């Protein structure tokens, strides 16, 4: 379980213009959860993500990962083993010169034995569907493939939690879809907890739970349906509801009997079929 206990974080501490990037965050993420965090630029999403693996430490309050406090220097490597991170720019996360070596990088760092390492690399390559690219060099891969390598690298560590900080914002639509599919399988079949930060509302709609952030606070929590039904609030925060929800609202405004919290195309099709 990941637990944020009244976490506040400042940038530029000790300087004149102190910036509060997180204020009073209380949040719990259970093992096996499939959650998205949304928010406008500068709302503190990335800062929050970097608190989960102890990369940033709370100014006040505590972050616990499976009972380990991130402030505890002794347990920081334990936490980083449990929490895999995927960042935005795929180019700046790959360290080694081939795919398999990169996946092994984390394992080398934590001192895994050779045999076990080979087994884990094979396993991760399989899950991320990278078998054919095993010996490829990173710069020859597409953005989506690179992100899959990063995910595989985290998987090989046997992480419990996977934190993805806008992993698809530099990808093409195809790569974007592919990454989401893989993440879904990981959650459903391997039980890996997914914490997914995104600016794409259509992506967020596919998660089980959404946290909405604004100015360093969590302002709204709930299922996609309940979150996206509050379109006006989201609009005020500089966010949009998914296109399909927008369409449903427009249709409802014009007199069609359609609920305004539709979040998938399938639902929309069902309701529209009633009119044929």
């Amino acid at each position, binding site marked *: 379980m990941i637990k944020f206990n009244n976490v506040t974080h400042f940038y530029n501490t000790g300087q004149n213009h102190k910036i509060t990037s997180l204020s009073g965050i209380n949040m719990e993420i259970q093992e096996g959860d499939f959650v998205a965090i949304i928010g406008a630029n500068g709302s503190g999403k990335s800062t929050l993500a970097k608190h989960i693996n102890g990369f940033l430490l709370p100014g006040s309050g505590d972050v616990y990962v499976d009972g380990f406090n991130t402030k505890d220097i002794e347990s920081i490597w334990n936490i980083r083993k449990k929490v895999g991170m995927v*960042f935005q720019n795929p*180019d700046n996360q790959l360290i*080694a*010169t081939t795919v398999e070596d990169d996946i092994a*990088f984390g394992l080398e760092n934590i001192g895994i034995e*050779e045999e076990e390492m080979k087994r884990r690399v094979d396993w991760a390559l399989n899950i991320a569907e990278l078998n054919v690219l095993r010996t490829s060099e990173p*710069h020859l891969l597409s953005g989506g493939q690179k992100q899959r390598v990063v995910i595989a690298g985290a998987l090989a560590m046997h992480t419990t939690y996977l934190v993805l900080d806008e992993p698809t914002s530099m990808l093409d639509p195809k790569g974007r879809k592919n990454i989401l599919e893989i993440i879904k399988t990981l959650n459903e079949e391997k039980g890996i907890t997914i914490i997914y930060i995104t600016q794409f509302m259509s992506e967020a709609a596919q998660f089980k739970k959404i946290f909405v952030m604004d100015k360093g606070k969590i302002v709204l929590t709930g299922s996609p349906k309940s979150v996206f039904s509050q379109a006006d609030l989201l609009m005020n925060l500089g966010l949009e509801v998914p296109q399909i929800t927008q369409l449903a609202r427009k249709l409802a405004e014009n007199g069609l009997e359609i609920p305004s919290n539709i979040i998938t195309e399938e639902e929309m099709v069902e309701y529209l079929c009633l009119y044929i």
Partner: protein
Amino acid sequence: MMFFRSITIGQYIYRNSIIHRLDPRVKIFVVILIITSVFLINSWIGFFLIGLYLFTNIYLSKVHPKYVLKGIRPLIFIIAFTLLIHFFTTPGEVIYHIWILNITREGIQRGLFIAVRLFYLILSTSWLTLTTSPIALTDGIERILSFLKIIRIPAHEIAMMMTIALRFIPTLMEETEKIIKAQMARGADFESGNIVKRIQNFLPIIIPLFVSAFHRADELSIAMEARCYRGGEGRTHYRQLLITKVDYIFMIVTLLILILSYL
């Protein structure tokens, strides 16, 4: 930019050959031996033997010689320059006289020797980098240097820096091309003007490149730490190095040839 494409150093070409399967430590050691002996040898027979040996190695590696020779192209000017300098500056028996310059017999001999030495130097290092994957190479260097840890030589750090450099060379080259195109689209001119002007014109390429490189370094270090990187201590290796019978045979043959060519 055609300039980038012609540098072979660090351009590994995969083939299934004896040479490719040799232990990188053995290959690095052999190249060091060749380079030192090339500068000790002073006879044409010796040079001939080493040349034969080097070309056999290249043949055995199944890499087309044109790749090896490509690495020499950027350095032809330097070789020609040293050749000429030696022709004219070595004192001795004058065999040709132009204006105030004298070409001596000793000069020709020494110039040719130096040219051959440089040629072999590039040949052997290209052979090493063409047949050894960058990973194997850095692994080899790390292991070779690891016994120097006692005198505080940071073997792991050096190897890690090399790995990252190798990983980012293609990425940064791509980025350079992008920046060049972007600046050209804004009307930048890299082709005309005198030398000073041209160098000045490169600033709009260098500055964005540096800014982005630092940015990358920052993000990369975060990604590395997120993956539990904390230096070389307690680190295991994905790739194991093994010295086999073939490696020993290769070493012995090399040593014999080097001794023969020195005699």
